[in-house]
């Protein structure tokens, strides 16, 4: 899985009947320091992520393992909205308006 930022939506009217009623988002991959990589994917949104949200997405056949994408021609799926993440004990990103418990590496 990679961290990504939802940067756009995809609207398509002419499409296979198996991808009807799915929401597709354009996701830009981010590295562990929240810096954008020059890599974009179109991913099926299984949890209702919004524009600008930082999300986790999976790729390959794993992306079909949701009730929404099962048996459909999908190879990328958003499955979580990120609240925060740490690298080496340093907070890299925290979603606005959310108070989450900081991870203290000394405690684990």
């Amino acid at each position, binding site marked *: *899985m990679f961290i990504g930022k939802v940067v756009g939506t995809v609207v398509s009217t002419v499409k296979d009947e198996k991808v009807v009623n799915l929401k597709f988002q354009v996701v830009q991959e981010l590295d*562990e320091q929240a810096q954008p990589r020059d890599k974009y994917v179109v991913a099926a949104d*299984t949890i209702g992520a919004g524009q600008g949200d930082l999300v986790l997405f999976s*790729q*390959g056949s794993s992306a079909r393992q949701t009730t929404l994408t099962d048996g459909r021609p999908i190879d990328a799926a958003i499955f979580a909205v990120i609240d925060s993440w740490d690298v080496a004990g340093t907070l890299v990103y925290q979603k606005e308006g959310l108070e989450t418990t900081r991870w203290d590496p000394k405690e684990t």
Partner: protein
Amino acid sequence: MHLARVIGRVVATRRITGLDGEKLLVVRPVDERGEDAGATLVACDAADSGLGDLVHVCDGRESTLALKESFVPVDATIVGHVEEFAVDRDVAAGAGGVADVLPGDDAPQGGERTRAGTTTGDDALPADGPRTGRATRDHGTDPAR
């Protein structure tokens, strides 16, 4: 599967049903020398890993088999801790010529390819010991375990 170092943790409360309770960690892939190799990724944790641990990560759809619920859209899972690993430089040379860049080479020149796969044991390793990576945590004395 590949080797990786745990470098961080991801918090995501809004997640798909079935992933409840699964720990999400940021891991940096490492190569056969223990050096950074490739783009960092996020992996589920099936091995109770912590920051700094050297682990092996299973990729692809099979990675969900290590989790409590296997019908989840996960494509990377930490399946084990690495206490130590070693690379036989002669075998590696036969596969990709790695011996050229490893230090401590006192082996006869030009014979690596024919010796590949046949030289095993201590004789095949450099003077400074095998090419190894070690876990940074001492599991034996860690009171948290």
